[in-house]
């Protein structure tokens, strides 16, 4: 009995392939701001992004029949009522934190390919600056706290209370096992900031960063410095997904979902007791997404990687298969991940330097790149890109997209 329980279940049985059957056909974003805040409620902020995405798709709100709101909205009902979506056939919310927007692409693709819904809207956003901040995780109730009851009962008593501290545990171990250095984490922060200088929407546009600035940044939770951490901003973004047939009737150049997958580490709800602490959801999801897409990491022209913290970019580069485990430090050095380099990462500046929009801004940037609308940030001849999501204690999601 134990053998069958312990074997990782192999790739699911072949069914209908999703490859190239679903497209992203609309995108929308609010402004991304810090002081003085968006001035909008959590709901209004996300509605604004949604309205823009629907318009960008050339649709009317009442044509939306699928909705995948982020958990911070509670449920789809209020959102649909405000939007004027009268015929909601498909409503679902994915609860894997920042992995949810990309995982929602996967779910939306299955809905439109099977005909369960025709136009699925995925909004995501928050007042991460003017509202409750990610840094202020205080255990009021286990259900709303990242890590839930396990964090409350086994982490918080010892002062392990917030995301940079959890992930710092992995980063330190990585430095020990592979010799990863702070300057390599700095190279990631610098690349994101450099890209933000080319992005007028980025909160950090106009604020370049040097390695000296980075190393002088105060330590938060060793090895994470303040400049290793994502921004806290107000903003929302949204995309619309439809079938490849329907996409042909709409006004934008469709961006095809070639391959997509989700995964969780084991155990997903507790970060210290993993056989391999670097094995995250993305470790399992990436090969599945590439297999569906029929491409390999070599074919990827750019990668929008969920950058809650610099080390997580390095970790995801390894787990996606762009390099071997432990080689991420060397990979991010020397400009390889900058525009003009071998694998531009977070061409918009990412969560680190554009804004924290729960990773939905990474999907939007990927679509812009593949539409050829990335202005000064355009990756020349961008044909295939990918976007990742990361949530909670390492849940992962990935979508390989093409023009």
């Amino acid at each position, binding site marked *: 009995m134990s053998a069958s329980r312990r074997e990782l279940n192999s790739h699911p049985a072949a069914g209908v392939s999703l490859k190239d059957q679903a497209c992203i056909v609309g995108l929308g974003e609010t402004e991304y701001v810090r002081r003085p805040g968006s001035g909008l409620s959590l709901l209004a902020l996300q509605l604004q992004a949604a309205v823009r995405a629907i318009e960008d798709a050339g649709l009317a709100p009442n044509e939306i029949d699928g909705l995948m709101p982020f958990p911070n909205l509670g449920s789809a009902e209020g959102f649909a009522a405000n939007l004027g979506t009268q015929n909601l056939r498909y409503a679902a919310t994915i609860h894997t934190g920042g992995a949810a927007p990309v995982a929602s692409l996967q779910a939306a693709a299955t809905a439109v390919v099977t005909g369960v819904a025709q136009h699925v809207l995925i909004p995501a956003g928050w007042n991460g600056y003017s509202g409750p901040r990610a840094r202020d995780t205080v255990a009021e109730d286990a259900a709303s706290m990242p890590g839930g009851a396990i964090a409350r009962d086994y982490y918080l008593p010892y002062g392990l209370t917030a995301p940079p501290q959890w992930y710092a*545990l992995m980063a330190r171990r990585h430095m020990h096992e592979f010799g990863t250095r702070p300057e390599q984490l700095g190279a990631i922060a610098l690349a994101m900031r450099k890209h933000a200088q080319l992005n007028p929407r980025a909160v950090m546009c106009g604020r370049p960063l040097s390695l000296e600035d980075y190393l002088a940044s105060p330590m938060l939770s060793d090895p994470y410095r303040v400049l290793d951490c994502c921004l806290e901003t107000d903003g929302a973004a949204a995309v619309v997904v439809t079938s490849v047939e329907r996409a042909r009737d709409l006004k934008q150049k469709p961006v095809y979902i070639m391959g997509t997958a989700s995964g969780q580490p084991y155990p997903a709800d507790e970060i210290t*007791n993993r056989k391999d602490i670097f094995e995250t959801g993305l470790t399992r999801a990436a090969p599945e997404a590439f297999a569906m897409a029929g491409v390999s990491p070599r074919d990827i022209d750019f990668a929008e990687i969920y950058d809650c913290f610099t080390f997580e970019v390095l970790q995801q580069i390894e787990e996606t298969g762009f390099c071997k485990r432990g080689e991420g430090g060397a990979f991010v050095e020397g400009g390889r991940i900058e525009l003009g380099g071998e694998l531009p990462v977070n061409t918009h500046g990412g969560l680190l330097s554009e804004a924290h929009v729960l990773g939905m801004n990474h999907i939007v940037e990927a679509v812009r790149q593949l539409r050829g609308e990335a202005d000064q940030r355009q990756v020349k001849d961008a044909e295939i890109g990918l976007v990742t999501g990361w949530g909670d204690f390492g849940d992962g999601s990935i979508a390989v997209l093409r023009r």
Partner: protein
Amino acid sequence: MTQAGTEYTKPLPTLQGLTQEFYDWCGERELRFQRCSECSAWRHVPREMCAECGSFRCEWAPSSGRGTVFTWTVVARALHPAFKDALPYAPVVIEMEEGVRILSEVLDCPLDELEIGMPVEVVFDEVTPGVTLPKFRRARA
């Protein structure tokens, strides 16, 4: 250790269910982990069943109390108000001889002397009359 008369303001575990059983053993100054009655697999944090073999039967088996430092982070800026006075401090992951890992802290060890692989042994800190937390110190030779 807690000063007499000082209010303890740090977060405490919610003592119910399996968490209560774990911390009740700590209150007896014993570190015990669940051990599956059918396949003998150790586990931490407490779970309802054995993920290795599917059994719902287990015992609270005594740990040797010895382990090594697996990883840690030094918190330089508190993100939780109750820990502002404790800065800098280090949550440490200890890998126990039994194979499970536990998040705790290492007492009486300067933070710059923490080392991966450092041998440690458990001690017990009665932080409030109702709650004892397992903590560690460097193992004596």
